[in-house]
């Protein structure tokens, strides 16, 4: 048989197993000529062999193999590696696999010895480093505790500060003694070295304790409780020092007064960054990813090119499947790195168990996996395979007593149809994956040429965007938000417009998301802010009062320097802060509530007002609203759109407006397009109206005209200018 000789060539020993009716092994026969290595084990004369005598290891595998044959228990089909010493004393590394063909039960034993060295090397390195890490940690730990005790003793025995200073200053570990509120009492050079600060101003470290607590919190939520209650805390976390990220091991211990109150905190830190780095280094040295133990990107690339060569030679076909876990970043942040790694490792092992042996799976890094699937037959159902993989990913994983469910988007490209070289195959599988994500995630997509057009569009937009700022292709329009009461000033929202010399007008919906993805939004955002402020300044200089509202993206708000940037722009232009309002979306706020609140507070402190955009579109819980330093709420246009016909819509707007007023916020309705909507909103007490019913977005000159008109008629009322029945009725009553 041809196939048998192939197995022999591949060094695989095939054994047919006969089962009795009650599923016991009755006999083993090896099939065809055994590969040469197996001759070292097999008795030469007979073909019937007591397999478990020759390979005692197999005995423990047989029940799994039977489960595999009878119940299709895919996860039981492989035995794992074992080492067997042959009669010649040569050691072999073997692995068995259970197969079923033509109703024959087969155990295939593969000789892994040739590649074992490589594999062993990876594990060896990883464990050696883990061992070194463990030892070092143990030493540090001990040193830390000794020092801690010594310092506590020195303090509690009321020895002179000088002596204490000596103990602390002499310590190789980084030490800070502080008050429970973080106020620094003593700090040593080693600590200043970690945080690269100079001797002159050690007290700038007043915030160090607070910084640590905040940084440690995400992986060690107990830290506040332990420290506040006078307990001893130690742990490791990522800490920022001058913009650089370090991995710190920190111990905090209290010195208590006679009544058990906390008098001082003794904090000892060690910089573990190097140690951690060495862990990452070995990953680079090897072809395997240490989190998931799967081949890594480099390994994958090698395999892919090898596969291509093979397929070209044999005129055969294969599929490249590209998997990206949906919203992994968010999950990872929620779980902490350990949880995230564990999740990846679990997914990896599930995925690798669900592919055939001659298929290839790799962990490309982060949340990306890729598979090479042989297409020996044309009718292989890739959709089914993709679906099976997605099912494996969807299965919940138990992480720290919490069931975590994730989904993935899958893209598939087929060689040679969708690409003849590795790069275009990867690109197209990635593109298909991206499309699957865009279509709502948790689905797969086969590559099709039309997907490319969309992609071209994106890429093109991206390229064009880079020139747009420099070449002054952006401009702003301003849409008034008119006041329903009597108000001497005009509010307006600055809206970006992009007129491309060849492509024409490109709507913001098409480029803003791309700019947010590639970071160009920072530059664009800054340009918008400056332009709008300059415009506002120009209006204000002619004595026209206004509020200029400028949109801020999540990306900008993530920058801790954002408030400083805004203040800088204002002072450069000379625009008083009260003329500026920043508009942020509800989703932006929810991404990092605490951080955003801080940034908003900072901005408000300078007199800038804040509006919450798209309010009501995102989160059902309104509770967080209480704590938000926000002046104005903008009702999401989807609510307004439903008015006045939807009773539900009416109830929602009414209660949102009431809620806002209770919280001392004003309400802006967006997208108001007709009289009925206006009437209803007026009835409900809405404060400002924005929409085509009054004004389209206007160019600066038109705004100037309105402002001039307002200046001439300080008591002008828009509402009175449009005849509305509600108002007429109201006045009659």
């Amino acid at each position, binding site marked *: 048989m041809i196939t048998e000789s192939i197995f022999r060539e591949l060094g695989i020993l095939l054994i047919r197993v006969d089962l009795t009716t009650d599923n016991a092994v009755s006999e083993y026969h090896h099939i065809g000529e055994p590969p040469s290595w197996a001759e070292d084990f097999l008795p030469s004369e007979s073909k019937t062999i007591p397999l478990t005598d020759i390979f005692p290891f197999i005995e423990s595998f047989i029940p799994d193999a039977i489960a595999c044959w009878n119940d299709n228990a895919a996860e039981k089909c492989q035995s794992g*590696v074992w080492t067997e010493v042959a009669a010649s004393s040569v050691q072999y590394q073997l692995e068995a696999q259970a197969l079923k063909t033509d109703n024959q039960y087969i155990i295939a034993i593969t000789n892994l010895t040739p590649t074992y060295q490589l594999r062993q090397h990876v594990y060896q390195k990883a464990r050696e480093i883990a061992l070194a890490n463990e030892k070092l940690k143990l030493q540090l730990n001990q040193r830390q505790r000794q020092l801690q005790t010594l310092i506590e003793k020195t303090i509690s025995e009321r020895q002179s500060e000088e002596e204490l200073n000596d103990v602390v200053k002499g310590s190789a570990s980084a030490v800070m003694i502080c008050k429970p509120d973080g106020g620094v009492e003593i700090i040593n050079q080693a600590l200043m070295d970690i945080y690269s600060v100079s001797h002159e101003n050690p007290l700038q470290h007043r915030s160090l304790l607070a910084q640590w607590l905040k940084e440690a919190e995400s992986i060690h939520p107990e830290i506040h409780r332990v420290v506040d209650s006078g307990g001893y805390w130690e742990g490791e976390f990522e800490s920022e020092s001058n913009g650089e990220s370090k991995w710190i091991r920190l111990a905090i211990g209290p010195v208590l007064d006679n009544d058990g109150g906390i008098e001082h905190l003794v904090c000892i830190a060690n910089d573990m960054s190097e140690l951690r780095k060495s862990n990452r280094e070995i990953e680079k040295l090897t072809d395997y990813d*240490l*989190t998931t133990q799967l081949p890594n990107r480099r390994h994958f690339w090698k395999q892919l090119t090898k596969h291509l060569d093979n397929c070209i030679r044999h005129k055969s076909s294969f599929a490249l499947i590209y998997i990206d876990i949906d919203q992994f970043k968010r999950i990872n942040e929620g779980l902490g790195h350990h949880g995230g790694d564990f999740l990846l490792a679990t997914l990896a092992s599930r995925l690798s168990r669900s592919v055939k042996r001659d298929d290839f799976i790799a962990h490309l890094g982060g949340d990306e996996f890729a598979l090479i699937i042989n297409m020996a037959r044309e009718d292989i159902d890739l959709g089914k395979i993709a679906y099976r993989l997605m099912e494996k990913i969807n299965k919940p994983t138990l992480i720290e007593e919490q069931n975590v469910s994730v989904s993935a988007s899958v893209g598939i490209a087929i060689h040679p149809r969708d690409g003849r070289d590795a790069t275009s195959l990867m690109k197209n599988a990635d593109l298909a994956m991206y499309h699957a994500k865009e279509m709502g995630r948790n689905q797969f997509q086969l590559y099709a040429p039309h997907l490319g057009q969309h992609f071209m569009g994106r890429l093109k937009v991206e390229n064009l965007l880079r020139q747009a700022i420099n070449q002054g292709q952006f401009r702003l329009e301003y849409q008034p938000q008119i006041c329903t009461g009597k108000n001497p000033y005009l509010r307006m929202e600055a809206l970006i417009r992009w007129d491309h010399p060849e492509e024409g007008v490109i709507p913001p919906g098409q480029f803003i998301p791309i700019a947010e993805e590639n970071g160009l939004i920072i530059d664009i955002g800054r340009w918008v802010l400056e332009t709008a402020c300059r415009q506002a300044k120009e209006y204000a200089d002619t004595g026209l009062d206004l509020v200029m509202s400028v949109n801020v993206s999540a990306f900008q708000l993530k920058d801790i320097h954002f408030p400083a940037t805004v203040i800088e722009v204002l002072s450069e232009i000379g625009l008083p802060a009260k003329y500026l309002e920043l508009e942020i979306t509800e989703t932006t706020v929810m991404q990092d509530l605490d951080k955003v609140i801080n940034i908003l507070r900072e901005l408000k402190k300078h007199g800038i007002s804040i509006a919450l955009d798209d309010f009501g579109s995102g989160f059902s819980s309104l509770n967080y609203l209480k704590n938000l330093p926000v002046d104005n709420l903008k009702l999401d246009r989807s609510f307004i759109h439903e008015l006045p016909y939807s009773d539900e819509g009416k109830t929602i707007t009414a209660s949102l407006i009431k809620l806002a007023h209770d919280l001392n916020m004003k309400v802006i309705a967006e997208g108001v397009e007709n009289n009925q909507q206006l009437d209803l909103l007026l009835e409900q007490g809405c404060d400002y109206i924005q929409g085509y019913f009054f004004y389209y977005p206007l160019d600066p000159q038109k705004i100037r005209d309105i402002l001039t008109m307002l200046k001439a008629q300080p008591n002008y009322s828009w509402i009175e200018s449009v005849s509305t029945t509600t108002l007429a009725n109201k006045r009659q009553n």
Partner: protein
Amino acid sequence: MIAKKICLIGSFAVGKTSLVRRFVESIFSEKYQTTIGVKIDKKIVQIPSQDVQLMIWDMEGRDEFSQHRTSYFRGAAGYFLVIDSTRPETLEVALETQEELQGQLGELPFIALITKRDLTEQRRLDPHRLATMEESGWEILETSAKTGINVERAFQRLAEKILDS
């Protein structure tokens, strides 16, 4: 002669392979060569009543990423829980493993081996914890693959325990 399968289980680098090599081949090496998967060795031990052929399954050490397959333990008559006297974390791993194994295999005879006894200076295990373990009925032996102390004895004892059970 009867044959019994025993397993060596514990964290990585605690000295499982070294124990087997000392016992089977009477050699010791300072060089660490991590085990992948399983290696099976055989040796006959003589206990007063009879000779027993021990099938010794030396397993890959447990670490963050490698979990033992349940199939490896199938048919085991007893096992060693191996703990490194210089690394407290390996004690935790052993305790965890024991809990899992008990769930999986039921009550099988086992002995906890505290290895590297020759490294007295570096000893880091909490004696109270060991005492508690002994109180709860664990049999604990302190071994050194380097000097050979208690190695023979450990295998002997486990074989006896297995036959007694």
